[in-house]
């Protein structure tokens, strides 16, 4: 069909007596050619270098006289909300050619739309964008609603490790920004766009898909000396068009475990769509760090959650058939909190993701072989993970890290807990695999396997002594940061709870009895997912 169509349309070319833009004076009319080929319909005329591209889905062709027609295409200007039309007036050499042209255009529209199979009750739907193909619409809707609220933007802006590092990285590297064009991918409140403008960018395009775009416009307008050089564009980077290429992409696409929320893919797509070949990305590189850990307290805490289901006679019902499922269910939740780095039992390793080089499809599946040497003999309860990103400026290279023991960020760290711990001795090798598979709820399924090889007597047999595996859903973590810790953190590292405190015991002024005040129990996954980052 494709080839046949190409062959067919190559044969159609119409000489036009004159072509003129609707917006210009008639005196600028000049002879032209309308050419159908495999790329579609283009109208060329001598007074313009760039041909007028016609979109078959929105084109309207009106005959205003036997030899004169107006061709109108709908489009939207970058940064403007309202649709507008762009059109040309076409003068044909005779009415036969005019009739033939109209006939061909109608046929062409019909065939193009039929190929897309989107015609229903006379309406034409636009083709799905890359983002919509990958991500389930309900997940995207909740995600963008969540990040459309100021409370969550404030939470991220007040993560001073995050905001301070971006601010420093941008201003320290102002040599990279002065006079350059910047695109802010997933701008949120617009703070990074403002930093880029502060650093002397010639222009910044702030692309934001959520309702936060309106707040970003407001915030930027409230900083008028910078606002002249910033344009807020509401939409997804997969869909929007920009008036020029970017010298720099800036973004904060990191989620828990670096890759959660799948915004790195949008960042990479923005690179391919908007970045000039020699352009820079802020940040340009990310690393996922991993190390085995021991934490008896955490393990018991999780295991005990399932005790309820061990009752054999609860109102006459044996609940025990669900204990196994409940037990595995609790262990399938990765744990998000800040933990003491002394719980790590081996030096960490890392996996590098170069944002300037990686292909988007490579982020659909991430497979990391693991190998550690235990420093102490203990029970290994799972794998601890965190990330850092590099701002590779030409003046200063700066890392933003979420490592345990470093100042705590709103990303915390993530731990995958095994329902069956493994035992290791000091010096013993731990091998395994961390396998991440993306899913359409904007997150990943995590498959973790850890094994400890035989060591000491019997080692020559080369067998695997113990292996433990688990499957976790990165979409449904257990946010543990407000739980009591088994160890004391230094004061400056005390994690701040991200979630509003939901259990407050208050002594009423009017009563002797304490009241228990709680926010309504969350019934929406929108409150659970996508909790910790900016888009």
């Amino acid at each position, binding site marked *: 069909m494709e080839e046949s169509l190409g062959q067919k349309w190559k044969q159609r070319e119409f000489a036009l007596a004159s072509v003129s833009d609707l917006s210009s004076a008639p005196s600028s009319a000049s002879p032209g050619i309308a050419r159908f080929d495999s790329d579609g319909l283009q109208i060329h005329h001598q007074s313009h270098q760039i041909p007028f591209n016609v979109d078959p889905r929105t084109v309207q062709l009106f005959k205003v006289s036997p030899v004169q027609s107006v061709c109108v295409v709908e489009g939207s200007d970058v940064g403007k909300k309202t649709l507008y039309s762009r059109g040309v007036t076409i003068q044909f050499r005779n009415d036969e050619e005019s009739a033939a042209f109209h006939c061909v255009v109608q046929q062409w529209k019909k065939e193009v739309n039929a190929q897309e199979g989107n015609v229903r009750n006379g309406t034409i739907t636009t083709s799905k964008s890359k983002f919509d193909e990958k991500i*389930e*619409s*309900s997940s995207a*809707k*909740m995600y963008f609603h969540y990040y459309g*609220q*100021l*409370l969550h933007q*404030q939470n991220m*802006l*007040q993560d001073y490790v995050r*905001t*301070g590092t971006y*601010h420093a990285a941008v201003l320290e590297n102002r040599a990279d920004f002065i006079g350059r064009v910047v695109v802010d991918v997933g701008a949120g*409140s617009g*703070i990074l766009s*403002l*930093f880029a403008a*502060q650093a002397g960018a010639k222009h910044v395009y702030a692309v934001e898909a959520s309702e936060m775009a309106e*707040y970003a416009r*407001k*915030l930027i*307008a*409230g*900083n008028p000396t910078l606002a002249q050089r910033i344009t807020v564009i509401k939409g997804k980077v997969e869909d929007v068009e920009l008036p020029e290429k970017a010298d720099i992409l800036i973004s904060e696409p990191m989620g828990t475990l670096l890759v959660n929320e799948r915004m790195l893919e949008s960042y990479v797509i923005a690179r391919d769509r908007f970045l000039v070949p020699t352009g820079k990305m802020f940040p340009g590189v990310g690393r996922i760090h991993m190390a085995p850990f021991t934490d008896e307290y955490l393990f018991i805490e999780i295991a005990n*959650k399932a005790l*309820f*289901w061990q009752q054999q006679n*609860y*109102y*006459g*019902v*044996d*609940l*025990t*058939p*669900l204990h196994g*499922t*409940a037990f595995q*269910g609790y262990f399938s939740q990765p744990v998000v909190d800040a933990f003491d780095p002394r719980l790590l039992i081996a030096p960490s390793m890392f996996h590098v993701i170069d944002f300037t080089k990686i292909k988007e499809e490579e982020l659909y599946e991430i497979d990391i072989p693991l190998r550690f040497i235990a420093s102490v003999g203990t029970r290994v309860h799972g794998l601890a993970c965190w990330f850092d990103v590099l701002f590779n400026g030409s003046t200063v290279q700066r890392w933003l890290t979420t490592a345990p023991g470093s100042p705590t960020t709103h990303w915390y760290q993530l731990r995958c807990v095994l329902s069956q711990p493994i035992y290791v001795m000091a010096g013993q090798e731990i091998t395994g695999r961390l396998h991440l598979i993306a899913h359409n709820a904007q997150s990943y399924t995590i498959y973790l396997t850890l094994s400890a090889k035989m060591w000491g007597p019997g080692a020559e047999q080369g067998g695997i002594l113990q292996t433990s595996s688990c499957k976790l859903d990165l979409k449904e973590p257990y946010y543990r940061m407000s739980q009591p810790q088994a160890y004391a953190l230094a004061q400056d590292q005390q994690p701040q709870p991200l979630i509003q405190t939901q259990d407050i015991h*208050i*002594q*009423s*002024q*009017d*009563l002797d*009895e304490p*009241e*228990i*005040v*709680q*926010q*309504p*129990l*969350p*019934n*929406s*996954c*929108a409150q*659970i997912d996508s909790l910790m980052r900016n888009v």
Partner: protein
Amino acid sequence: MGTSANAVAGGRGGAPVPKDVDYANYFCTYAFLYHQKEMLSDRVRMDAYFNAIFENKRHFAGKTVLDVGTGSGILAIWSAQAGARKVYAVEATKMSEHARALIKANNLQDVVEVIEGSMEEVTLPERVDVIISEWMGYFLLRESMFDSVIHARDCWLKPTGVMYPSHARMWMAPIRTGIVDHKLGDYESTMDDWHNFVDETKTYYGVDMGTLTKPFSEEQRKYYLQTSLWNSLHPHQVIGTAGIIKEIDCLTATVADIEKVRSNFSMSITVENTKLCGFGGWFDVHFRGRSEDPAEHEIELTTAPSVDYGTHWGQQVFLLHPPMRLNEGDDLRVSFLMSRSKENHRLMEVELGCEIHQHSGKILAPFKNKYYIE
């Protein structure tokens, strides 16, 4: 899973949410065992349903039963244990698999059939004698699950069938609570934090966030002062008589009856020299059967303030800013309207107007407040 918008019938109050978003927002939290555990651990809830079923076995023995939104399957299991001939347990989430496992382990798989799907989509092989469900949300109607029960009744209940529960009431009473000062303090503290944040962002990052102060304040005001709160009130906090907002007969109620709940009622202050800090809202449900086929033992499940019999529903508290000093004998004339949120039909908005007739005969200026149940 493609998007499919629900058809919007004329006159519906709340905006329907696309089906897959509704599924993700509402149903998927019920797919987790830890949510089921929370409800199964509510003894008042469990006792009421347990007693309603086992003290009224006549309604179940040899009969067909439909359990709407079965969750872990507990009500279906009890129905079968009470002698039902057949039980259809409908569950929209993957919890249906757990329900099957539980039913099989209790040797009831020949009696109970678990059907995965939403009530509006499934087809049953027969009409039923009993519809049982635990459809109540906070303040009875949050979550709008009763819509599904109404649908089930209209499609699948025999003309002589009974509903478990059969009746429900919504209540409200004047209360005093320290929360009102606490929440105002929280709001002011949040605004102080915001002002500090604006100062710091200006000082350290050279960006003036001041233009966002007004929308931030609106966002926080709604969150702290206008959103109803879950609370477990002590009976001593109730400073007056409770008024009935709405009575529902589950056998005859329609969706139109519950989409907008409009009511005018009175409450009298019964405590001298007290402080009206807000209003507490709660519900009760009754297992009475139907007039032609009454229950042998009427069972009531109430979520009213209680020292010993609190539930996971608690009460919803609607705060009054600022509180008012009142005396015994003062009369509150309330006009109440609860409708579905424009953005999500499972959440509610409340408009509450109140005129106070003091026992001295003086009438105070009326006030009107808007609240959100989220």
